[in-house]
């Protein structure tokens, strides 16, 4: 068993190294700006989905309102930067703390009283709606639905602004790596969360504190996506309530994770690597021909995926192996049966 665990860990570290090296190589290869943009978005969403998965994938508490925390992070750091010239590097920590506070307000009552399934999902959506209405109505602070843009600076590490794409890729890569390693290192918590997902009564009967563990990962997840909110501002240089705090952003995180494989370490990353480039390509190649067609195709792909691969793309090797094994077993039993028949 120990050997198996060691081998698994080695393989995992190797995978991370290969992905990181490949992405770093992308900064040197002279891709077009558009290709670089797709790669950066992919890494960004891989980070965000990893944060979402940490809470929702492992615990089965499906949040479709995570954009609330993204928005809190984005608006906090942007407002502090615009009004008080505070560097986004500090602003994003404050945004993260604020997002954690907001998450605590909702997670504590939800998890203390055992809200799950559609009830939890609905309350997560409600929080997102509330935050969006607040952002839209607090015009003096957020300029409402007009949105806010980031005051331009030349490349400047202090201001977290760069004229080229590559530094963003490096920053996002570092945070993605940190997030994945964090989830990987939380081995004990992952087991607890999986047990809670399967049956929370059985988990608590074995001495696992359900409420405490759920709140813990919810806070961590909120903090991480809030950091992502700041990344979004610094990279896109413009936010408005509906894009950063809307259902599209929130469901995107869920879909990426579910397609890649929820409740797994690298599922969200695989999901992002598939979904982001495909949706970008569909959008650019079909978006101008028949408006909405790309969303239609995107939807079909999703439905097919969820029906035929509920455990995500990451489960493909497992599925193939199991099929092969059952086929083998089938051949063996029919062989022994026919052998038995000839003996008679």
């Amino acid at each position, binding site marked *: *068993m120990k050997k198996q665990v060691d081998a698994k860990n080695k393989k995992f570290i190797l995978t991370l190294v290969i992905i990181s090296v490949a992405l770093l190589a992308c900064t040197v290869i002279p891709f077009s700006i558009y290709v670089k943009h797709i790669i950066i978005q992919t890494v960004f969403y891989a980070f965000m989905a990893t944060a979402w998965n940490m809470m929702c994938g492992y615990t089965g508490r499906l949040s479709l309102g995570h954009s609330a925390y993204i928005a809190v992070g984005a608006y906090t750091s942007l407002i502090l930067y615009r009004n008080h010239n505070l560097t986004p590097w500090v602003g994003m920590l404050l945004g993260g703390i604020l997002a954690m506070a907001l998450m605590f307000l909702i997670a504590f009552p939800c998890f203390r009283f055992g809200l799950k399934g559609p009830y939890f999902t609905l309350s997560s959506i409600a929080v997102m709606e509330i935050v969006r209405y607040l952002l839209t109505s607090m015009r003096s602070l957020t300029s409402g639905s007009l949105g806010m843009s980031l005051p331009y600076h030349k490349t400047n590490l202090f201001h977290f602004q760069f004229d080229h794409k590559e530094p963003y890729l490096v920053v996002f890569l570092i945070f993605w790596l940190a997030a994945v390693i964090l989830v990987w290192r939380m*081995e004990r918590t992952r087991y607890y969360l999986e047990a809670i997902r399967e049956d929370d009564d*059985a988990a*608590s009967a*074995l001495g696992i504190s359900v409420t405490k563990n759920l709140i813990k990962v919810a806070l961590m997840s909120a903090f991480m996506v809030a950091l992502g909110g700041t990344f979004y501002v610094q990279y896109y240089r413009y936010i408005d309530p509906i894009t950063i705090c809307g259902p599209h952003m929130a469901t995107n995180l869920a879909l990426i994770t579910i397609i890649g494989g929820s409740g797994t370490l690298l599922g969200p990353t695989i999901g992002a690597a598939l979904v982001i480039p495909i949706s970008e390509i569909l959008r650019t190649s079909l978006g101008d021909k028949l408006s909405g067609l790309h969303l239609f195709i995107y939807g079909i792909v999703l439905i097919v995926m969820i029906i035929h691969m509920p455990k995500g793309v990451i489960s493909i090797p497992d599925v193939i192996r199991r099929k092969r094994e059952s086929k083998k077993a089938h051949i063996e039993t029919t062989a022994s049966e026919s052998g038995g028949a000839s003996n008679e």
Partner: protein
Amino acid sequence: MSEAILQVKGVSKSFGGLKATNDVSFDLYEHEILGIIGPNGAGKSTLFNLITNFYQIDEGDILYKGESIVGLTPDVVCRKGLTRTFQVAKPFSGLTVFDNILVGCLPGSATVAEARDKVDGILEIVKLNDLAHEPGGKLTTLQRKRLELGKALATNPDVLMLDEVMTGLKPHEMEEMMGLVLKLKETKTIMVVEHVMKVVMGISDRIIVLDHGVKIAEGTPTEVTNNPKVIEAYLGRSAKKHA
């Protein structure tokens, strides 16, 4: 007799107008097997839920090693050394049998590696070694019951509360399970809720009988079976019918 490890004192619990448990008191002594019997709906499982704090009691007190455990959460009760199984086995279906047991070992272990080392021993006790890498959801009834017991053992409890671990098993499987429980008695204190009379009579040192939430008798298996109240409440009904 050794000291009472668990004292249940005048415990009552109502669900709406129904008194599921009514002023029940008893002591549990170290290294004994206490059987709890009673007809359907007598409040046996409710009693387990009350002791482990899955339900909160309305009245009374529950002392574990002299300390009240009323108002704690089930996970704290478990970490104190009282672990229960569920009448309907609750395997973590998506996790392998190995990981099911591992989860039980984790709260009491300093590291995940330490917990991992404990798993094989428990798999051996409940005879699930061959199925270690099967998902918990794929097991048969007997295997599920064994896994349920294994998960409880993984928490290394002082008091083991078994809720119908024998029900639904074939006779020879039952014998096997009884042997296992008797062996566990050497190191643990055990409470069993059981429907199958043969089992309860066979393994219990003492028995308490519940009917409609009230304790109507307590004593050795022979004392209990000769108690007229018990015969009327439990055994008598079918006896009369047959007569």
